[in-house]
């Protein structure tokens, strides 16, 4: 049991995809303009990650080595397209903010990375847990970056405005994303090392 739990917790701390593995930087930098956007992007990625991990762990034994990458990509792309269709149909507002970045989940290195490094070598349950752990780690990291950028950039958290005025514009734009990511990474690794 402790073993299963550690699969989840390592995704949060020791192998946090954003702050430790430094994977999937494109959506991390681009979609974290506010806490809500970061959270939604994290959840969307987690959805794809868990499902693709499960399916890949099931089909890995019968996939010939030389074609395993194309097969995994087809599986991942299928789930991403599925997510895109579902979001368009049932949550059009979320789709409007994240739209462009949803198809890009296909090429998010976290997902293919976990498929290669974990799901293809482990069973269904472990792979699903790994997807949950890494997914939560990614979601929390994106939300954290989003919260900091939203506070500094627009004086608000999750859309709740507590400071009048505009805040430091740079944090809403690209330079702020790099700055916040860098400092949070320092902070995270400092805390993680102490433990």
């Amino acid at each position: 049991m402790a073993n299963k739990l550690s699969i989840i917790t390592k995704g949060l701390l020791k192998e946090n995809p954003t702050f430790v593995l430094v994977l999937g930087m494109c959506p991390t930098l681009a979609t974290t303009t506010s806490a809500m956007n970061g959270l939604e992007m994290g959840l969307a990625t987690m959805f794809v990650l868990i499902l693709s991990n499960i399916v890949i762990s099931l089909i890995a034994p019968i996939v010939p080595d030389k074609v395993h990458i194309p097969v995994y990509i087809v599986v991942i792309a299928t789930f991403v397209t599925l997510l895109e269709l579902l979001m368009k149909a049932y949550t059009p507002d979320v789709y409007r903010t994240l739209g462009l970045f949803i198809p890009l989940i296909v090429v998010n290195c976290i997902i293919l990375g976990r498929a290669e490094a974990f799901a293809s070598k482990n069973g269904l349950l472990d792979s699903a847990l790994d997807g949950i752990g890494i997914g939560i780690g990614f979601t929390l990291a994106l939300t954290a970056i989003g919260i900091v950028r939203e506070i500094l950039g627009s004086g608000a958290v999750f859309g709740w405005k507590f400071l009048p005025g505009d805040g430091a514009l740079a944090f809403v734009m690209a330079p702020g994303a790099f700055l916040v990511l860098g400092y949070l990474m320092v902070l995270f690794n400092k805390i993680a090392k102490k433990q």
Partner: protein
Amino acid sequence: MAAKSNLVNMVACLFGVCLVCAAVLGSVYAVTKAPIEAAAAAEAQAAIAKVLPEGGQISEGEAALPEGVLAYYEQAGPDGVAAYAVKTVASGFGGPLMLMVGVLPDGTVYNTSVLSHSETPGLGAKCAEEGSHFRTQWQNFAGKFAVKKDGGDIDAITASTITSRAYTKAVAQAVALVKGFHGEEMTVTDASTGASVKSKEE
């Protein structure tokens, strides 16, 4: 362990995986098709309704469209068309600025709304903020279509003259179309090329 990588295995495996994936996607597409279309239609309807007075059947107009106008809709009134909603686009600072503009038959702007834009956050993007002075001044506007700096009647957004000019031009295009229907001539001046030597957003 993984199956052997001979030709037959590889082809069979890829074929099988693609077949299953295609089947899954096909069925999900079929299920979500109607809701997606409904959502898109509802969004378009809401955008049109926002810039028009209440009431009246709305139908898409069929006249030839001038440059910059993507579509227009007519709202039926007791005698003829009560108002027009015009979907119009102009080049903003960061890319196309697409608006829905409600215009009354006499050429008065009823209301405007931003459909999509890629202006700078915190500067030009303010043009999409409902209720700001820049937006409310457009309600029932019938003045000269140019920002005050260019001799018109529009208060530009601070530090976003290019965006304000694009917005003004887009609205002017809509009004020109409607005036054209009623036999009036109106030329849309492009302040962004005529008056602007500076290419940077001021």
